[in-house]
């Protein structure tokens, strides 16, 4: 149950970058955060490491993404018995 904090470096081309943002926001496993300049914070909450890797590869493959850095990885040590329903994307994520 990996939860990863990502720093996404968007392409300099603004059209490409905004396409990438649209595509990523359509993925329910990705929560997009603040954008500073070309850098965007994001959290990827996936049910399995392999899914994580796939998503990672998918993000990197987007034309509007130059780099993808993983800055944080956490595992849920106590997985629930049943597949957990995805919590709604919260707009109350604390900002630092």
């Amino acid at each position, binding site marked *: *149950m990996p939860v990863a904090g990502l720093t996404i470096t968007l392409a300099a081309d603004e059209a490409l970058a905004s396409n990438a943002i649209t595509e990523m926001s359509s993925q329910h496993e990705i929560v997009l955060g603040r954008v500073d300049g070309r850098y965007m914070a994001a959290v990827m909450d996936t*049910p*399995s*490491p*392999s*899914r994580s*890797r*796939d998503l*990672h*590869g998918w993000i990197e493959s987007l034309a509007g993404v130059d*780099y993808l*850095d*993983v*800055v*944080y990885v956490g595992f849920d040590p106590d*997985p*629930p*018995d*049943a*597949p*957990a329903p995805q919590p709604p994307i919260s707009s109350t994520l604390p900002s630092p």
Partner: protein
Amino acid sequence: MLPKDVENYFDTHRRSTAIALAILLVTVISGFFMGMGQTRNFSDQTRDLRDRQSTSAENQPPSGKIPTAIGYGDLATATFRPNTNWSSSLNDLATADESYLPVAAMTKNERRAAILARESLRAFDGAPPVVPHPIDQISSSSCMNCHSATGPQPVIAGRTPARMSHTFLSNCTQCHVASSGHGEGVTDWKLGLGSIETRFAGLSIAAAGDRAYPEAPPVIPHTIRMRENCYSCHGSGRVNALTTSHPERQNCTQCHAISAAKEGRDFDLLRLRKPVRFPIDLNPPPPPASDPTPEPDTKGNPKP
């Protein structure tokens, strides 16, 4: 009071005597360096000294045991002799405490203030800093008394002078010049081209080094050329720089990487190389086709 008593008194108050003597000698020495004829007001340091003397509790001698000062009229005939703490050498004065105690990391505002203070003394990051105090214009030997790379350093007005950050070079003023003129005391003449501004905007002093991830050791955000001795700026007690939070660790570049690009090292070579657009991924995801990892099982657990 007998001379013996004076000695005993000083023996029991060795520390405060040393500080008082340091203050006295430093004042004398700064006075000497400033030169007789100077009329400029360099009072910042002396004001600090006076404050220290009057407010610091440990500097106040206990009541009832103060030796009587000799009147000016009696100076010529008074018999002086050195007490046990007397020293004619700057190097024997109270010196900076460089014991490697843990130091609290600077706050954001402290960092900012330190960086601004640093910038005020440099044209750009990497330029030799100008000297923020009067200097002996003719000889470099006085610089070495406080700024040498080794040996004890006197604490002046609560500040520890920076050690020479680079290999020993004996002609200090070749690169480091005084920031406030040659100090011959001209104050009421408008001389020189003083009013012309510059549009030169030098490389600013890097605020912080990049980290690969939080908690990673930051890379060094500046050139280390002529700054090979990290402790010159980052050691405890230094001002205008980020002081290390772990002074007991001596091999800085073991963890803090240097940047060849920052220093322009081998730039002729760099020009020839093709830029690599993406960083090399040391741990690439396996290609999807051969990825045997199945989807999570029904319980949502990943396969071991």
